[in-house]
């Protein structure tokens, strides 16, 4: 497959007004990833899927990553090609912040395989995907508040019984029940 640097150059030529960045990967054997401009994400995705040399038709792994220190949430897409049998190309999208502007364009219209996985990101990380056909909670129940995969998520403290008391689990459970008593 072409190197990500090559692809980046071609993307910049095709979408001159889009901001695309190459993010290095600390692991030397693994490829770097492309940070896309959310405004052009759908067009770029369609380009990557239909480009004759790339034909990235298989969006395998779609997931979110929470970066509280940096102040954004990422959606990461791993793209492979079933036709050309190559890959991966990693593309990322970033939200502007973690609470008010968490909207990203959905790539489900391009790759159906992102359907359930984007719902999962919405559920566990709280990114709202614009253009997703059916954006509901998927693993947690409908009335659930908060997003459990965020780093600052606070686990519930109403354990029934905790015999091997680790850390502050027992203490928190005791506090919980004494509060309610």
């Amino acid at each position, binding site marked *: 497959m072409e190197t990500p640097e090559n692809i980046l150059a071609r993307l910049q030529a095709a979408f001159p007004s889009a901001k695309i960045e190459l993010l290095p990967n600390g692991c030397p054997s693994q490829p770097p990833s492309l940070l896309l401009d959310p405004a052009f994400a759908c067009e770029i995705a369609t380009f990557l899927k239909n480009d004759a040399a790339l034909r990235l038709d298989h969006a395998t792994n779609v997931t979110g990553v929470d970066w509280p220190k940096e102040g954004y949430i990422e959606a990461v897409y791993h793209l492979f090609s079933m036709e050309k049998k190559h890959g991966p190309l990693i593309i990322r999208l970033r939200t502007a912040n973690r609470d008010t502007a968490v909207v990203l364009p959905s790539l489900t219209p391009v790759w159906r395989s992102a359907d359930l996985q984007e719902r999962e990101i919405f559920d566990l990380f709280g990114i709202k995907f614009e253009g997703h056909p059916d954006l509901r909670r998927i693993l947690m129940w409908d009335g659930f508040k908060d997003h459990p995969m965020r780093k600052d998520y606070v686990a519930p403290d109403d354990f029934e019984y905790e*015999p*091997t008391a680790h850390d502050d689990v027992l203490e928190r459970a005791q506090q919980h029940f004494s509060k309610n008593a």
Partner: protein
Amino acid sequence: MLGTGIIRGLVVTARNFLGSFYDRRRFVTVFYPEQKVEMPERFRSFPFLVYDGEDAVRGLRCVACKICEKNCPPQCIYIVQQRDEKGKPLKHPAVFDLDISVCMSCGICVEVCPFDSIKMDKVFEVAESARFEKLLFGKAALSKSNAYYRSVSPADAGETDARLEEEKKAAAAKAQAAAQKKSAAQAQEPQ
């Protein structure tokens, strides 16, 4: 012809049904609990603590280093180190609790233990009437002798014993060499 596939299938079932009367391969169940299947050497159920000799407290190999507690994936081990009157930590656990309702029998504690003090048992019939208290095993319930370990998994125990013996010998030889060196140095000093 329509139906031949079904008839062929029925022949297979008939062969299995009749075969189960005389063919061991087709009759595979045992009448538990009257009959029991023999467990393989490496079968593992729940962890226990090994002690050397007769005394379960003094012979306990565990030094309360808490490596197993830290590495236990479901966090089912809880250790408190023993301290003497002055508060100095001793190489012995005051509390060693293991909640087998949480334990998932993965054997990671055995793998990470540098003192060969925690090993996997082969007892799997541990059903209890109380869900929480009775499934929390304390230090006394967990301690089992090295002879017991040798009886449940002879190969592994033999290998461990041989290694410990080797280490002991090496340590003794090292101590002896150090002592000799020291005495030699002392002998040289007056000159």
